[in-house]
Structures are given as C-alpha cells and as structure tokens.
C-alpha cells in the first residue's frame, strides 16, 4: 500500500472518531428537541441554552471543588429544573395560542438566556478546569483520547436509560400517550401538564449533560456556546425525523461525521454550509426525516 493511500485511511479513521464524538454531543442535544416536538409540536429554539446552562452549572461546581461525580448529575438536574420553570412560565400560558406564538417565544427565551449569561457571568470564554487528565491512545496516525471515549460511552449509557424510561416505565407510557393524542390521553386521566414538564426536564437534562461533556473535551465554555450546537442539533433532529427518538440519535451521529469529513477532506469554511444544506435537502426530499414514515396530515 503506498503512503498516500495509507494516509487516506488513517485520516478517514481519525475523522470518523472525531465525528462520532461530536455527533454524540449533537445527538444528546437533538434528543431534547425531538422529545419536546414529539409531545407538544413545539420547536424549542431555547434548547441550546439548556446545554449552555448545564455547562455553567458544571463549571461553577467544579471550580468550587466538587468532584465530577457530583457536578455532572447536578448539571443535568440544573438544566432540567430551568427547563421546567421555562415551560411553566413561558410555554404553558401560550400553549393554545398557536405554533407561531410558541416559536417566537422560544426564540425570545433563547436570546434572553444568551444575554442574561453575558450580563451575569461575562461574555469572555471561561476555561473549564481539566478535571480529567487527557490521555491519548495512538494507533498509527490515529488518535483517540480518554475524554472522547468517555463522551461516547456516556452518550450510549444515557440513550439506553432514555430508551428504558420511554418504553418500559409508566411515565414513559404516559409520554407516548400524550405524544400520540394529547386530548385522549387527558381523558384517560393522564395529568398531561405533569408529563409535558417531565419531558422538558428529561430533554434539558440530556442537553445539560452534553454541556459538561463539551466543557471537559474543549476546556472552554461561554454564554453564546448554545447557539450553534442548538441549531445543529435541530438539523440533526430534522435529519433523523423530528419527533422520533432514535432518529435524533442517528441524525446527530450522521451530522457529526459529515461535518468532520467535510472539514478534514475539504475545507472548514464549508462545514456550516453543508450542515444547513443537509437540512434543506432533507426538507425537500424526505421532510419526515431518515427514520420518519410518510403520513398524510389529517385535515
């Protein structure tokens, strides 16, 4: 095998490793988008901010001396609680006012948190303390770090927990019922408000987990950090089929890998263009996403 071809395979392997890591992050955020959409048909553009909030909760706990075993669940909890409060204060009062009103409120909430963050903690990027010392394992020209492995494994574990939660518990069953038909579920005695709050909580907690993982990986966090990953995760959710939980996971991974291949083999300038190009193509060709079924909307 000549040197060039060898390099090509090493590169491909490396971009795949980096892509899967980044894709895991997108997937964790995308799950929240898709769950909230699945249950109240709201595209929650403030979702990226829960990821930012999670990162900051983790950051402040870690710098005040808490171990990661405390900081990580606390960040999930923190992001989840904020999401529940936002749902109660912002989305619930206008739930029946139509989707445009809800969408605009979501954008407003997103801006509110971005600028609240800049106003309170400052706009400059903060250095997330390297609590886990980075160790790289090399194989030829390929490298994988222990933090990348942690990200991938944590993502898998969280997804399995979510799967169990949605498919095998009573509350999961209630979530599926509300998602399937809100009014009928309410008639069956399900407290839909509680279920919707819970869905926000779980979605935001996953995003909060992603925030801490990113803090560990790149060692930098800032109040605007939720903007781009939030949009990308939205693309990932649509790519997989919005409202479908495994779809979000798949969409996130595909997007992460494609982005890294584009940056690696082509040029980083085109990365975002490609990501949003994918969104347009999916909307044109298969609006229901990779895993979506074509269902005619009932009129």
């Amino acid at each position, binding site marked *: 095998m000549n040197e060039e071809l060898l*390099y090509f395979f090493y590169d491909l392997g490396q971009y795949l490793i980096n892509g899967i890591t980044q894709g895991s992050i997108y997937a964790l955020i995308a799950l929240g988008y898709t769950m909230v959409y699945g249950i109240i048909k709201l595209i929650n553009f403030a979702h990226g901010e829960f990821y930012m909030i999670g990162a900051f909760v983790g950051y402040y706990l870690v710098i005040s001396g808490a171990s990661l075993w405390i900081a990580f669940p606390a960040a999930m909890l923190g992001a989840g609680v904020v999401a529940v409060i936002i749902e109660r204060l912002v989305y619930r009062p206008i739930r029946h006012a139509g989707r445009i009103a809800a969408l605009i409120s979501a954008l407003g909430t997103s801006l509110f948190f971005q600028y609240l963050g800049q106003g309170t903690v400052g706009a400059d990027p903060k250095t997330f303390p390297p609590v886990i010392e980075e160790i790289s394992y090399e194989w030829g020209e390929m490298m994988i770090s222990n933090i990348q492995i942690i990200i991938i494994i944590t993502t898998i574990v969280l997804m399995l927990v979510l799967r169990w939660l949605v498919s095998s518990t009573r509350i999961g069953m209630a979530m599926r019922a509300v998602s399937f038909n809100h009014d009928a579920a309410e008639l069956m005695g399900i407290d839909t408000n509680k279920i919707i709050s819970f869905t926000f909580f779980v979605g935001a907690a996953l995003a909060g987990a992603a925030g801490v993982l990113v803090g560990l990986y790149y060692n930098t966090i*800032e109040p605007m950090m939720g903007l781009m990953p939030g949009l990308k995760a939205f693309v990932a959710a649509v790519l997989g089929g919005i409202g479908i939980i495994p779809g979000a996971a798949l969409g996130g991974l595909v997007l992460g890998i494609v982005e890294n291949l584009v940056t690696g083999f082509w040029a*980083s*300038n085109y990365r975002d263009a490609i990501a949003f190009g994918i969104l347009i193509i999916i909307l044109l060709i298969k609006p229901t996403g990779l895993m979506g079924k074509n269902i005619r909307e009932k009129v």
Partner: protein
Amino acid sequence: MRYGRLTTLCISLLMMTLTSPLWASKKTITIGAVFPMTGPIATYGQESVNGINLALKKVGDISIKGRKIRLIVEDNKGEPIESANSVRKLINIDKVNAVIGSVASSNTLAGAPIAQQAEVPLLTPASTNEAVTKTGNFISRTCFTDGFQGVVMARFAFNNLKKRNVAIIIDNSSDYSKGLAAVFKKEFQRLGGKLVSQRDFAYQQKDIDFKSLLRKVKRKRPDVIFLPGYYTEVGLILRQARQMNIKMPFLGGDGWDSPKLQELAGPKGIKNNYISSHFSPDDQDPMVQEFVKKYIKIHKQRPGAMAALGYDGMLVLLDALKRAKSLKSKDLALAINSTKQFKGVTGTISIDRQRNATKSAVVLETTAKGNIFNTKVNP
C-alpha cells in the same frame, strides 16, 4: 383605555430619550466609542474602554472650548453588522462630534464608510488592517498597520528564529487575519523562506475543534507556524496542537495579546510562541510604568495592549480637540490628521499622509506567567 396612562408615559419617556442627546450636544462635546464589550473578543473592548476612561480621568474634569466631554459607549459584540449599526446610531441620534473605535478591523471597516459619508471623524486606536484608513479623509488610526506588523514577524521568524518552512493558518472570517497573512507571506518569501502549502489553512471565528485542521498542518512538516488570529480561537488551537505533539513555535500578531490567552491555551500550549504587539507592560519607560501602576490600581490586573492603545487613542483625540480651530468636523479631522510626535505609552505617534500612525512594535514571548518582552522593532 386601560393602558392609556401607561402608553402616555412610555411615549413621553421615549421622546425624552430621543431628544435628550439633541440638547445635550449643544453643551457638551460628545464622543462615541464603539467596542466589543461582549462576544468572542470582549476582553479587547473592555480593556480599550478601561484605557479610554483612564485617559479621561488623567486629563480630569476639563472642559475644551467651554464644553464638557461626554463619552457614549456602544457595544458592537465583535460583529461587523452591529458596528455599522452602532456608528449610525451614534452619528444620527446622539450627534457625536467624533467616534473612537473599534478593535477588529472587520468591525471598523463596517462602520468607517458611514462616518466618512456623514463627515464625522472616526479614530481607531487598534485596527491594523491596511484598508481601514483608505475609506477616506475622516478615518485615521493611532496604531501601526499590518504592513508593518507582518514584516516584523516575517523577519523575526527568518532572522531571529532561523526558520525556513512556514505554514500559515488564517481566520477566514477576519480581514485582519487575511491581511496580516498576506504581508507575512510576501516578506517571508522575499527573504528566501518557503511556504509548506500554497493554500492557507483556514478556520472560522467561533470554531472550537481544530484537530482535523491541525492534522493537515502537521503532515506538511513546517518548522514554524504563523497564526494571525484572535485569542479565543488561538488559545484552543495552541492547546490542541500541543496535545497532538505539534511542537514548533507558533507566531502571531496583536490579536493574541489578551490575558485570556494564557488561560485558554493552558501551560503546555502557551510556551515557546512569539507575537508582535503594540505595548509591553514591562517597558521601563517612566510614562509606561506610571500608566501600568494607575491601571493596576483601578482594574486589579496588568494592562494589555488594547488598554494602552485605547488610552493613547483617547489622549490623541483630546489633544486634537484642543488644537482644532473649531468643533466643526472638518477642523477636527484636520487636527487629528496633523498629530505629530505625540508621546504615548505605546510609542511616539505621528499620523502620516495616509492617516496611519508610524510607531514601534514589540516582539513578545508568550509564557504561562504572561508575555515577556523579547525585542523592540522601530519602523
């Protein structure tokens, strides 16, 4: 009519805010400052405004031509569009006599044409891209240009570090980065150095993952890397490069000069790199030391280049206001552009015919404890 009273109140408040600058401008000299107070280069804006306020404080509560000085700070978030909006707002609504700002060249370039068209003098203390002052005769600067900075670094790489093969990584969203890279490339090749790749390696502002990019750079085996970016991305690039065993020195420009760089790059990433800048707080000049002492007293940290540039820029502007024949914008622009041999903390400032300042640059070595003075280069 439930909201009647509230609406009236709101309207009257709105009227007051809209009209107040009109009557205020008759009694004061209003200076608008456009700086990135938030966003990815926020420390630059904050430092610049600290410097500007220190300059105002130094001259004290003076009145020039019988009027008091009033400063209005607008946040451009480090974005060109916001810069254009801020300049427009300052000129149309606040009716400022002059604008000072901004830092990033792409931001200043977005605001400059508006000031030029309205014939309001705009003085940038820190934008080094060549094109900035070419906008017109109302736009000038009190810092050196990339033409000078790029040449300084190219010569430093070739003569002092004895490097021959350079890789250039640029921030594709920044006019500053592209301009500086072009000058560096020309001079380095003129001296006899080689580029390892004809195409520049490029990233975007706000990127956080540079591993794929750095991999491509590493494979070309350069012995030095020129990275004219801003500290937010540069810090992460340095950290990730050292993790990937890229050990050669990185060279940069004044865009690196922020205390945040040390924090973002980490102790391993920061070592063994060199930058050109405007100012070193280690300079033993008594004027510089007095400035450093005062700055530390108020802000509890050592001033970076942007604080010093903001300080000098404001002092030059105040000096011009005093010298100007009248407060008409044409006279003011004339006074700014005829600044000669003004002693500032960043060097002696003379504004030339192209409305650029000719002054010295310093080369600093970046270390975990801060940037250390290496050499001073005169124009």
